[in-house]
C-alpha cells in the first residue's frame, strides 16, 4: 500500500467528517424552532418563570451558545470547534461537556459492540464456510441452518424474547442494567463477573440477530470459491483437506466478507444502540435517548456526529487493512 493511497484515504475521511458535521449543523437549523426556547418553554410549563425573565434567559443563553450570531459565523465557529474536537456542552447536565458524556458511556458500547461484532463475524463466516464445504460432516454443516432462520428476526425482538424466557421466566440471568443494584464499580473479579452476566443477553440478541447474515453470504461465496481451479489444483497437489480449507478456500472466500464487515458497521451501531437502551445499559444509546427525551440538542448532534465519524474511521481502517489480506489490491 503506497503512502499516497493512505494519504488519499485519510483526506477522504476528513471530507466525510466535514460533510457529516455540515449536515448535523444545518439540519436542526432548517427547523424554525430554537432549541433553547423549546427547552425553557418546556421548563416554563412546569411553572416558576415569569415570561419576561424567560425571554432574558433565552437571550443570554442564545448569546452564550452563539445562536444570535449570523448563520455563516456560527457555521465557521462550529467547524472550528469540531476541528478542535470540541462538541460543546450538555444543556441538560451543564457544565458537563458532550465529550464527558461520551467518555462515560463509550466503554460500555465499545465493549458490547466489539465483542458481539467480532464473535458474530467469526462464528457466521466459519459456519457459512463449513456449510458450503462438501467434505465437512453433515451435522456440522447443519448447524448453520437455525442461525439463518434467526436472521429474519430483528435483534430487538430477539432481546424481548430472551428477556422474557431466560431472565423473566427462568430467572437464569439478570433482567437488565449494567450491574447488580447496590454494587460499587471497581476492578474486582467478582464485579467483572457480575458485569459479564448482565452483558450475556444483550450480546446474545445482537449475535443471534446478525450471525445468519454472515452465514448466508459466506455460504454463497464458499460455493463459488470451491469450484475455482486453484482449489481443485490444491487437491491434485495432495494437500490435506484442512490445508485446502484454510489457505485456499477460506482465505479467498473471506475477502468480500471483510468488505461486507465495513459496510455492516453502520447497522451494527444502530441495532447496538437500540438493544442497549432495551437492556438499560449505560452506553451511548442511553445517553442519546435521554438527550432526545430532554431536547438536549448539542448532545444529540454530538453523539450523532461522533458515531458518524467513528463508523467512517473504522471503514477507512478496514480499507487500509484490506491489502494485507489481498495482495492484488496492494499496487492498485
Amino acid at each position, binding site marked *: 500500500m503506497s503512502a499516497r493511497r493512505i494519504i488519499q484515504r485519510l483526506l477522504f475521511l476528513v471530507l466525510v467528517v466535514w460533510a457529516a458535521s455540515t449536515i448535523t449543523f444545518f439540519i436542526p437549523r432548517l427547523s424554525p424552532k430554537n432549541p433553547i426556547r423549546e427547552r425553557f418553554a418546556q421548563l416554563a410549563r412546569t411553572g416558576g418563570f415569569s415570561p419576561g425573565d424567560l425571554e432574558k434567559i433565552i437571550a443570554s443563553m442564545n448569546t452564550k451558545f452563539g445562536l444570535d450570531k449570523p448563520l455563516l459565523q456560527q457555521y465557521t465557529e462550529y467547524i472550528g470547534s469540531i476541528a478542535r474536537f470540541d462538541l460543546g456542552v450538555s444543556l441538560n447536565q451543564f457544565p458537563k461537556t458532550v465529550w464527558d458524556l461520551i467518555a462515560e458511556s463509550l466503554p460500555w458500547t465499545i465493549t458490547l459492540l466489539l465483542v458481539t461484532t467480532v464473535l458474530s463475524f467469526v462464528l457466521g463466516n466459519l459456519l457459512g464456510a463449513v456449510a458450503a464445504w462438501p467434505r465437512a460432516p453433515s451435522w456440522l454443516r447443519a448447524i448453520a441452518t437455525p442461525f439463518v432462520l434467526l436472521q429474519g428476526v430483528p435483534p430487538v425482538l430477539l432481546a424481548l424474547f430472551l428477556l422474557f424466557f431466560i431472565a423473566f421466566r427462568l430467572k437464569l440471568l439478570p433482567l437488565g442494567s449494567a450491574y447488580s443494584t447496590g454494587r460499587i464499580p471497581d476492578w474486582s473479579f467478582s464485579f467483572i463477573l457480575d458485569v459479564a452476566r448482565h452483558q450475556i443477553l444483550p450480546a446474545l440478541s445482537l449475535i443471534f440477530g446478525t450471525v445468519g447474515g454472515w452465514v448466508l453470504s459466506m455460504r454463497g461465496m464458499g460455493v463459488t470459491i470451491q469450484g475455482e481451479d486453484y482449489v*481443485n489444483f490444491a487437491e491434485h497437489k*495432495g494437500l490435506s483437506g484442512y490445508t485446502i480449507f484454510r489457505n485456499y478456500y477460506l482465505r*479467498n472466500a473471506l475477502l468480500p466478507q471483510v468488505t461486507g464487515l465495513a459496510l455492516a458497521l453502520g447497522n451494527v451501531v444502530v441495532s447496538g444502540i437500540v438493544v442497549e437502551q432495551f437492556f438499560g445499559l449505560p452506553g451511548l444509546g442511553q445517553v442519546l435517548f435521554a438527550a432526545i427525551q430532554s431536547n438536549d440538542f448539542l448532545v444529540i448532534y454530538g453523539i450523532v456526529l461522533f458515531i458518524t465519524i467513528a463508523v467512517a474511521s473504522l471503514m477507512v481502517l478496514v480499507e487500509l487493512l484490506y491489502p494485507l489480506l489481498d495482495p492484488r489490491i496492494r499496487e492498485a
Partner: protein
Amino acid sequence: MNPVLQVIDLQVSYYTDTGRAIALNGVTLALSAGEKLGLVGESGSGKSTMALAMMRMIKPPGRIEGGQVIVGDTDLTKLSNDDMLKARLSKIAYIPQGAMNSLNPVMRIGDQMADAIRAHDPKADKFAVEDRCVGALESVDLKPSVYKMYAHELSGGMKQRVCIAIGILLKPQVIIADEPTSALDVVTQRQVMETIDRVQKQIGAAVILIGHDMGLMAQFVDKVAVMYAGRLAEMSTVRQMFTTPAHPYAQALISSLPSLDNKGVFQGIPGLAPSLLRLPSGCAFHPRCPHAMDVCTTKRPELETLDDGRRVACHLYPEKA
C-alpha cells in the same frame, strides 16, 4: 521395457438424475518411462474423466466402478485415502487445464510450492524446501524471484510454467497434462510444450497429454490414443496415426484436419457424439461409421493389437487367432 503406468479395464460412471452415464468403459493402456502419449477425442469422450480417475479425483455423483491404475508397482485404486493424498504429486502429478486460475491469488508462489512439498514431507527443512522450489522454477525457465511473487504478477505462460514446476516438484513417475496450453497464444504454447518435454526428460516420467490440438500432438508425443464415447478406439504411434489411421473414427478425425496440401472444403464427421446415458449397442461409433457392418450393431469390438503394433477396436480388422 517395464511399463511405469498401467491402466487396466478402468470403469467410471456418473449417476445423474436421468440415469447412469458411462464415462469410461473398460480403458486399458500402458506407458513406459519417458514415453509421451497424446489422448485425443471430442468433448465428452472421457479424456478428462480419465485424468481425474487416474488421480482418484472423481467426485460424486461420479464413481470409479472397476479397474486398476498401477504406477510403478503401486495400485492406486487399492490405496487408502491418506495414502492416495501422498501418492498425488509424488507418484502421479497433474498439470491443470486453465492454468490462468490454478494458482491461489492470495498466496505467494513459493508458499504454494512449499505446502505441496510439506504435505508429503512434513519434517522438511525450510531452506531445503526453498532450494527445491527455486530449482523447480529454474528448470521451467523461471527466475528465482518468482518464488516471492503472486499469481497476478505473472503472465499466462509464466503461470502455466509455475504449474509445471509444481507438477515436477516431487519427481513423479507419471505426469498428466490436461490441455496445458489452452488459453495461451501459439508462441507461448510451443514454449510451454518444450518445457514439459525437457523436464519430462530430466525426471524420466511418462507423460499423458490431453488435448484437442492435433497439430501440437503431432509435434510432441510418441503415441496417440483416440477416445470415443469412453473407450479407446485406436492407439498407435504418431506417424501411423497421422498417415494411416486404422479406426474409421480416427480416419475421420485425421481427414478433418486442415493441411497445406489438402485445400478445399473440410470434411466433418457426420452425426453427433452419442449420449453416454444411452450408448448405441455394439460399437458406439456404428451409427456414424461409413464402414458399419451387421456385426457392429450387436458386438462390441475389443482393442486388438495389429501386426504393425497398433491397437484398434474395430471389426474391420479381424481378430488374430
